[in-house]
């Protein structure tokens, strides 16, 4: 069922490319100066809207800033939001989900009703509503996309907890007289973590897209912050005369998300193979 390009993408080469790209993006986020000697905020009125060339591989924008440099520096923001919000959502999700999964049925069903209500809303709308409450801004965008992701993690954490809790090995441990707390620590949590980790890996991509979407709509950081969604939004009115301003940030977002997805799916398959 997998052949040709998929085989390539699903196979080793694709995986290595994806990991490599993530590593590069992570490096951009941590140490952008390795990639470019320029200042992402430095303007140059003599270099306005220059097409991609040697000195400016991604061209320049309306104030003569180097798009490549801005994309590189943007990685720290986008990846920061992606990883930070996902991690926070994951932690909250695991705690609430696991507790709900282990709690008596009454508490569980009350908690799940609440989560169900939250799940009634598309993640992007929750993020939007969170912005409505918090107001726009870079930190608030991270919070908003994090909040939006939480219900899904709770649900998965709970479902996984229930699966593991009803699994043969938890029953076996119980049958051996292992203390419930030890069962939770030794079996339940570790075994729910793996699927959650996989989902979170893919979730980083989703979060990056959601945060970029909010920025795109003008609800995130403001210019001159080099955030990818904002860079894209800044280029939308220049599509006719300077396609590169919007094009490269868009490509970077897509590639990053594709990579996260490829890696996540790979992890999932690895997990399935073992179970």
């Amino acid at each position: 069922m997998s052949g040709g390009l998929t085989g390539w993408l699903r196979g080793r080469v694709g995986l290595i490319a994806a990991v490599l790209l993530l590593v590069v993006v992570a490096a951009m986020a941590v140490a952008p100066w390795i990639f470019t000697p320029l200042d992402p905020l430095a303007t140059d009125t003599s270099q306005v809207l220059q097409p991609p060339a040697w000195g400016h591989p991604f061209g320049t924008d309306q104030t003569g800033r180097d798009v490549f440099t801005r994309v590189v520096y943007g990685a720290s923001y986008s990846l920061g939001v992606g990883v930070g919000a996902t991690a926070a959502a994951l932690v909250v999700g695991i705690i609430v989900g696991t507790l709900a999964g282990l709690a008596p049925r009454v508490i569980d069903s009350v908690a799940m009703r609440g989560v169900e209500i939250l799940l009634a809303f598309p993640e992007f709308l929750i993020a939007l509503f969170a912005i409505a409450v918090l107001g726009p801004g870079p930190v608030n965008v991270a919070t908003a996309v994090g909040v939006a992701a939480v219900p899904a993690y709770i649900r998965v954490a709970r479902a996984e907890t229930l699966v593991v809790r009803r699994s043969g090995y938890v029953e076996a441990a119980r049958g051996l007289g292992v203390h419930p707390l030890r069962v939770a620590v030794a079996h339940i949590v570790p075994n729910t973590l793996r699927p959650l980790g996989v989902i979170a890996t893919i979730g980083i991509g989703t979060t990056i897209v959601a945060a970029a979407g909010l920025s795109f709509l003008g609800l995130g950081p403001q210019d001159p912050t080099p955030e990818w969604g904002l860079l894209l939004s800044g280029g939308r009115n220049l599509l006719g005369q300077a396609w590169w301003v919007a094009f490269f940030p868009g490509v970077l977002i897509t590639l990053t998300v594709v990579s996260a997805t490829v890696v996540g799916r790979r992890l999932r398959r690895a997990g399935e193979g073992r179970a």
Partner: protein
Amino acid sequence: MVLRRILARVAGMLVVVWGAATAAFLVLKLVPGDPVDVMLGVSAQASPELKQSIRAELGLDQPLVVQYLSYLSRLVRGDFGTSYQLRLPVTEVIGQQLGYTLQLAAASLAIALVIALVGAVLVHGRAARGVFSVLELLAISSPPFWIGLVLLSVFAFGLGWFPVAGADGIQSLILPALTIALPVAGILGQVLRTGLEDAEEQPFVTSARARGAGPARLVLRHTLRHAAIPALTLAGYIVGSLLGGAVVVESVFARPGLGRVALSAITNRDLPVVMGIIVFTAIVFVLVNLLVDLAYRAIDPRIHTPTTAIRGAR
């Protein structure tokens, strides 16, 4: 028994809507800033007395509990309040714009289904499937606004095949619908294909093949129905994508619709509209879930409530 189940179901739906309405109320009470200031558009000339009278008129000077109860009682009567920004009843605001978004959502869904089905059912051969699944991955991973901009600049700005904006007829619907449809089609296609592939592994397919069934019959009479079950679980996600996508796409393509209303309500802190949209979304969700459940039942005769142990076991 059946009646009791239906009643329980309806009650469950109402609980979700009520919960969403309550959450919306509470959360939006946390919004910083005086709603009256927001409402007046920070006009400097509004005297404190005027603000006070507006506050009284809106019942904002009442205790929270009273406000909540009157909010609920108005909701029950279908009164969602009046938009600060548009100065219209929220129901009217939503009603006016609903059509556009429904059109967009329906078109998106149709396009997504067609692409996904074509991709899952008709695309055969390793190479073709490979290309298709890479495209799906790209579609899933690309931010919708990026897809929209690319489509816009290629097909509207560049080739001039479609209008660049607005909501005039079917022509102006295609690009926005496609923008929302592509990621949805990506996910749906993957799930359908995986579902088909899983179903193909099932023993009943061997039985059917042993009866001499050809590929078309296998898909149409057997595996597609099985693949539809996991695809149905995506319904919530898809509806979410349609609504969330509408926010972005209506902005990119300058289309009217609920997404635009939601965005402008949020940027302008138009709280009654925000609350209205929250409650509306909850209702949509509840209805979609109901439809999905009915669809499950229609597709899968095995569905029944699982046996539950009565007290004594834990």
